């Protein structure tokens, strides 16, 4: 409970309305203001797969600590309509405050209930009577938030100017700032001083503010990705849209294909020709890519695929979050072939891992999957500035023309102890070979000899063993001697960390194994971790416990693990995890 004068170190603001209301824009302006005032930010987008007319909400969380996800409660809630209230007022924290437009209220909630405050705040009416346009309700709402959170108006005005000046001109900036001041004045009349959530101001840090999708796109550019092909799909399209602007400036190419089959096969062609090539998609697109995924494995062509997971199966819930494509990428496509599956947990890791993905793909000549989620794919986070001095481009056994010309009898798929053969590109002298989707011999020509088949299969699979030392190892967080273990991958990173802190407050010590490479399975590290845990909980955003099943299929020693699953299409809240563990002990 935030009492007046009490230091606020963590706050969540929810803005809710209908799609088309401008919720995202308003929220992002607020997030930027908070970021410039030195707060760490994590936003959470819960929006419909529809352009207009369905409920949407956006949570902006700010903290003085590092955060990587939404928290448990909403402290300040601005609602453009009642529908939103009935859905989300349960999440309002004790001491929380809610402002609702409320014009369409039939039965208004009490103004105070269980230490929560509810105010009517006629956003639309104010917008129309003062500015003649309903859209100004957004800036009036922002003004009210500025008052409640005690934000610095100089920062607010600067950000509004950044948002509108170039695109819409001085007059629009002036009007919007006027609307913000109006919202602030109105809030002063409505909100009592003890209901305020005044935030401390710090200096703007060097932190970035971006989505996981953007971090991947930027990382791909830095990693030398120069060919990108994709088909539009939520929630991955932001990667493409970012690259569509920047790749051409770096002599690269972004193409929109007719479907995901074309996208995957086209990046195979591009990579075979020698370009660093990538596609991005989500579950349904991944399903369509499955056959060509196998071709990448069979023909040993390096490619990078980003799957920003959404809630499935089928068309599912295109704009909601889930972690249910794990099986698709680890087991998907017919036949056996090597593949590497990486899972970043933060926006910083999105950048680091995509660079690693390109290097792994070329070094081990196989497809590499970067598995992320809508949660931090489309959600914006503050992130440490990326260190470009650490970006290395490793092209593995790709031969230069000089090296190739000196090779007698070049064989593209030569049997090597590490399974990795030298690679030549079309157009090179002395490098003629075949790329076969059929089983083939060392030169790439179709061969159905059982002996060759066995050797080729072993050669290809051997590459995963060679790669195992080069992969991103799982990371252990929390006290090493804790006996409660938590295992997770991807976006559960933030909620699990916070759940551990919550458990600690209740005298329970837990540690967390963050799986960062899912395949090939980091067996040794996982077994070591499990051996030190009396009880383990596997936290996943899916129905069947796909990570849990993976653990059970790989780990050789018996272990006591329970699943904590959330398949609601919403990200975990830390309390879901901590209360579950407390109850289970």
């Amino acid at each position, binding site marked *: 409970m935030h009492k007046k004068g009490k230091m606020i170190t963590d706050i969540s603001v929810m803005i809710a309305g209908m799609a088309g209301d401008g919720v995202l824009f308003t929220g992002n302006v607020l997030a930027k203001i908070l970021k410039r005032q030195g707060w760490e930010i994590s936003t959470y987008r819960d929006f419909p797969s529809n352009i207009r007319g369905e409920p949407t909400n956006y949570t902006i969380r700010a903290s003085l600590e590092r955060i990587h996800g939404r928290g448990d409660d909403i402290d300040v809630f601005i609602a453009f309509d009642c529908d939103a209230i009935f859905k989300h007022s349960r999440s309002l924290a004790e001491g929380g405050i809610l402002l609702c437009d409320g014009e369409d209220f039939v039965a208004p909630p009490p103004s105070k209930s269980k230490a929560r405050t509810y105010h009517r705040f006629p956003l639309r009416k104010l917008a129309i009577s003062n500015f003649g346009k309903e859209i100004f309700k957004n800036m009036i709402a922002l003004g009210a938030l500025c008052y409640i959170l005690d934000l610095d108006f100089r920062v607010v005005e600067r950000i509004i100017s950044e948002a509108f000046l170039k695109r819409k001109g001085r007059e629009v900036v002036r009007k919007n700032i006027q609307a913000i001041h109006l919202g602030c004045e109105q809030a002063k009349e409505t909100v009592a001083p003890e209901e305020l959530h005044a935030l401390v101001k710090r200096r703007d840090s060097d932190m970035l503010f971006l989505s996981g999708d953007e971090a991947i796109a930027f990382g791909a550019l830095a990693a030398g990705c120069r*060919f990108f092909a994709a088909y539009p799909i939520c929630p991955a399209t932001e990667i493409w849209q970012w690259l569509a602007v920047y790749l051409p400036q770096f002599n690269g190419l972004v193409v929109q294909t007719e*479907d995901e089959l074309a996208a995957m096969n*086209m990046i195979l*062609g*591009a990579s075979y020709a020698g370009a660093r090539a990538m596609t991005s998609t989500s579950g349904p697109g991944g399903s369509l890519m499955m056959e*060509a995924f196998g071709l990448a494995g069979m023909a040993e062509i390096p490619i990078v695929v980003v799957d920003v997971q959404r809630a499935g199966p089928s068309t599912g819930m295109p704009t909601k979050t889930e972690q249910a494509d794990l099986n698709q990428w680890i087991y998907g496509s017919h036949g056996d072939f090597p593949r590497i599956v990486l899972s970043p947990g933060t926006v910083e890791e999105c950048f680091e891992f995509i660079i690693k993905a390109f290097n792994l793909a070329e070094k081990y000549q196989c497809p590499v999957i970067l598995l992320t989620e809508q949660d931090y794919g489309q959600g914006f986070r503050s992130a440490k500035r990326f260190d470009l001095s650490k970006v290395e481009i490793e092209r593995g056994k790709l031969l230069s023309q000089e090296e190739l010309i000196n090779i007698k009898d070049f064989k593209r798929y030569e049997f090597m102890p590490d399974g990795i053969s030298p690679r030549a590109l079309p157009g090179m002298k002395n490098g003629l070979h075949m790329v076969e989707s059929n089983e083939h011999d060392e030169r790439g020509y179709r061969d159905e000899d059982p002996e060759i088949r066995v050797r080729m299969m072993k050669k290809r699979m051997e590459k995963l063993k060679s790669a195992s030392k080069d992969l991103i190892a799982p990371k252990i967080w929390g006290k090493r001697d804790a006996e409660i273990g938590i295992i997770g991958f991807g976006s559960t990173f933030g909620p699990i960390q916070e759940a551990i802190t919550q458990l600690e407050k209740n005298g329970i010590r837990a540690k967390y194994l963050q799986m960062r490479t899912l395949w090939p399975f980091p067996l040794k590290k996982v077994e070591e971790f499990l051996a030190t845990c009396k009880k383990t909980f596997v936290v996943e955003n899916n129905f069947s416990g796909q990570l849990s099943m993976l653990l059970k299929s790989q780990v050789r020693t018996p272990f006591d693990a329970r699943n904590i699953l959330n398949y609601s299409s919403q990200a975990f809240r830390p309390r879901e995890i901590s209360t579950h563990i407390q109850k289970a002990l």
Partner: protein
Amino acid sequence: MRKDKDYHLTDPTWCKGCGIYGIFAALKKVAATLDLDPEQLVIVTGIGCHGRLNNYFLSYGFHALHGRTLPVASGVKLSNPSLSVLAISGDGDAYSIGLGHFIHSLRWNINITYLVVDNRIYALTQGQTSPTSETGFVSVSTPYGSKELNLNGPQLALASGGSFIARGFSGDPAQLSRLIKKGMRHKGFALIEVLSPCVTHNKVNTYNWFKKNIYNLDDDSNYDAKDKMKAWKKLSAEKKIPLGLIYVEKRPSYEDLVFRKEAEPIVSGDLGVDAPRLEKIMEKFK
């Protein structure tokens, strides 16, 4: 000057009399005439009897998945436009499982030559009806006769914005060579459908049947391949099948539109990390 045999890797093992021999011969001839360096030529094939061609023809080769020759070929060509890229499909590959790519490739107009080997049957899988089999065609998959209309590839190509549309016959390798050569010189996507009898499974569309049912536009001095309406009329006529250069237009290729004139191929670009430039871009995330 290169010779046909410079491209001959091994002797093919297609059925004796198969139409693809004619295509194989024509391709070698064109490559030699154009003096193509085998190391600068990429041939992307699909699944079907035609897909064996890479095993016999000396060049860089890519035997792709069923129906996916065009996206692979496009990826190769766009990443390295200095290569000559030839894609080959069968009627199943091009007009059935890969039809989406066919239409969009015509629209894109990437500088690729595309041969569709049309034997009007699924041969490699032992003789099922294909999209180009005529209505009523009896096969193992349609023992009571097919009920669907057959698909007219060149006509579909014309409607899809094709900039070079031709049809050849594997029984006439001389004309076929001329058409392929023209196609390879064409700036943009060149479609050459090749009528090619399957001597093992298709007992209807034989060499004799084709000879009776084709006529040659190249012999018609009144025919103007630049006239789209004329081309449409010829392709719409129900009975006889026109061969030759059916339609050609000058239109910028996709590469002309997306790459600067002096730009070097993507694959030759320096991948070194341009830190100052990237730092500047990173500032936009603040």
